[in-house]
């Protein structure tokens, strides 16, 4: 039920109850979505849509963080392995890594 789908805002308009709506495209399908909770979302933005309402604007700046963290973890474990070889330790990076 907490399913939220990312989609692209294609246009915005006023709709039922004087609220802000937009057409949002999900892959091949589009539907009308209430944009009342994402006042800063504009055409071209991606939003997370849950049961017909957009709950959040996706931040493109943060979208690649999952890969940045992976590289950080790999650096950590490489460092740990090198330190392990040098000191004969367990090869696990200690607290407060880079």
């Amino acid at each position, binding site marked *: 039920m*907490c*399913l*939220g789908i990312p989609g692209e805002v294609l246009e915005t308009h006023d709709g039922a109850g004087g609220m802000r709506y937009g057409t949002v495209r999900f892959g091949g399908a589009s539907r009308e979505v209430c944009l009342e*909770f994402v006042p800063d979302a504009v055409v071209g933005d991606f939003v997370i849509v849950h049961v017909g309402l957009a*709950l*959040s604007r996706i931040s493109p700046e943060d979208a690649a963080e999952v890969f940045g963290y992976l590289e950080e973890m790999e650096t*950590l474990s490489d460092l740990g392995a090198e330190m392990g070889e040098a000191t004969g330790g367990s090869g696990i*990076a200690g607290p407060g890594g880079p």
Partner: protein
Amino acid sequence: MKYLDEYRDGGAAQRYAETLRALVTRPWTLMEVCGGQTHSIVRYGIDEMLPPGVTLVHGPGCPVCVTPVAALDRAFRLARRPEVIFTSFGDMLRVPGSRDDLLHVRAEGGDVRVVYSPLDAVAIAEREPGREVVFFAVGFETTAPANAMAVRLAARKGLRNFSLLVAQVRVPPALEAILAEPACRVQGFLAAGHVCAVMGTAEYEPLARRHGVPVVVTGFEPLDLLQGTAMALRQLEEGRCEVEIQYARVVRPEGNAAARRAIEEVFEVTDRGWRGLGDIPRSGLGLNARYAAFDAERRFPDAAPPSREDPECRAGLVLQGRLRPQECPAFGARCTPEHPLGAPMVSSEGACAAYWLYRRRAAAGRVA
């Protein structure tokens, strides 16, 4: 699709699995509290990619599943009333109450309609002014803004034939209840990304501090879950217990101010009973005095006959993370999606449904 496919990259997932093996020195147990995450974990085999000794326990992350049978029975009685159009999300249709489900109610003449959004239920009320339209408002904080908006919209339009049957639940009090159990083995939480997209992270700070557990707000795709798990395990290995956000592309620490305002305008915090966890203080939402006219419980008073859970159903233990679905003797035998004993087998977020969909063959292989 953008913002989906890139987070399902198998190569990156394998690299995450390798870094986790290098990171972990001890056994750890984490719990996720979101049925969407449970389904991703089981579907993509995230749990099987983790280092030996690291266990992911499925918590009470399915709002349909934690709805007590008495509340379901009440809903089904309401759905049978001739003046009522009973509207609900689709995954409620097969959920069994004491005696039957919404599909039976519909087969016997009840006007039960599936809607995609509570706003669609408001539109039905507008089109059919001679009928009473009730929306079954089940959900976590993720769904509360949409339900609040439906009530606001109905009020703005002056509709007198729209109401909510509210069974809204809040996540943090349930986490408190789980941690308060003496037998609790959960050492960290993956918190539900979309709940926190609405509510932010402030509610989880005291919980993490008081119980010494890391809380990582996590997304739903395989790489999200692997990163969230890595962040929680790294905290545990380093002796930290902080609230961190993995799902930063969607979740801001302060949540969504407009959505929270809508919740606060329409709802108030109430006590609520959870299947499997019992009554938990302040764990639910109910309509406040200003919007009481939209409360289906007030509009349709009901002397509840006693309800009964199927004694064979172990949903309570599954919801507490104390029993895995396949360990239940009824799983796949006397309990299937066609003939469910309890909600977790048929809700789209239920843990039993996830194992039925993605792990049935593996289970059969093990039995053989």
